């Protein structure tokens, strides 16, 4: 269960989705993902509608998300939505509410009904 590979696939799905590219065209953000149990850090970057991903710390991240490795994997591969772990307190978010909402919406538009 390689989280980096999962994030790369997630970024690719965003980039292939014309509607998401339009939605994110003015959303420039660095998002840090911290897998708390393995203490590994990853990042997602949004710029001009394109999403990229990588591993390592993202010092200047505007949005910081932390959860267990399996939860992050399940969210970014569409197994679960962020809402469930968020409401249960298993997903912690530091940053603007709008940004978290947008990530929710992105995942729902890729994997929703």
């Amino acid at each position: 269960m390689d989280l980096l590979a999962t994030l790369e696939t997630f970024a690719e799905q965003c980039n292939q989705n014309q509607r998401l590219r339009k939605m994110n065209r003015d959303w420039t953000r660095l998002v840090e993902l911290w897998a708390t149990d393995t203490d590994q850090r990853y990042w997602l970057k949004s710029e001009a509608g394109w999403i990229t991903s990588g591993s390592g710390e993202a010092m200047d991240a505007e949005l910081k998300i932390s959860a267990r490795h399996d939860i992050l994997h399940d969210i970014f591969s569409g197994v679960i939505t962020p809402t469930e772990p968020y409401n249960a307190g298993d997903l912690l978010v530091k940053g603007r509410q709008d940004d978290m909402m947008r990530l929710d919406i992105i995942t729902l538009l890729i994997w929703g009904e």
Partner: protein
Amino acid sequence: MKHVVSVSLGTDQRDHQVTLSLLGQTVMVERRGVNGDLERAESLIRTLDGSVDAIGLGGIDRYLVMAGKRYEIADARRLALSAHRTPVVDGSGLKDTWERWIVEDLTQSQVISPSMSVLMVSAMDRFGMAEAFYQRGYPVVAGDLIFASRINYPIVTREELIELGRKLLPEMVKLPFWQLYPTGAQQLEAVPENHYEEYFDAADIIAGDFHFIKRYMPLRLDDKLILTNTTTDADRAMLRSRGVRDVVTTTPVIDGRSFGTNVVEALLAAISGLTQDHDGWTELVAKARHELFKLSAS
């Protein structure tokens, strides 16, 4: 005398009380704001349960009804289920009928026409009105993603609105309500960095939830027609000072205030014992609408 209370998540600065006569019965209507405090709303509903004839949920929808599907907002469900004896209604039973008719009436009376462009600041919470506009050929921009989530993506067709609703609403309704909609003091604040004025500028008609309109509207609204509800005298004066041509409220203005749809639905539930799930509801709404607007004009 019947007694109806609207428990609103909005500010208590808009609280009021009025007594009116409808369909042969006298009803005292009260609004009580809890400033966004869900626990306080729940406690107030428990206190009112069994001692009033109907309770309205204000500042929050329980149901979002869209193209034959009904999505239930988790926080509103919790509030509604805290009453066991008194019916609790949220206005959705009116939005899907009454607000469609408003668009028809205004079009037929030539107050508005399909050559006018419409900005619906949010359409997923009043799909009836949005659909009425789409069906009559109005160019409509639905701003749900823009104003609720600050995603600069206008929804321009009925089909895309329904598609997005089907994908987003089943999960969105599970989120804490304060993440979805301005409550309490937030309702009094304008957004400091407003990047969405272009949508207001491009529209002839600005329709939908007044709190979203108020938070995002630009300083000038020259010649616009506003179609909304839950406005006060002060709100309407402020809109006029910004150049608005006309303010049309979907619910009648009584005692200087347009009632929330939840209040009207609670009124009807108190008088008739019916709710939107009963036979005869649509006929009752039509009859009451006629009488309430007569009352409003008098």
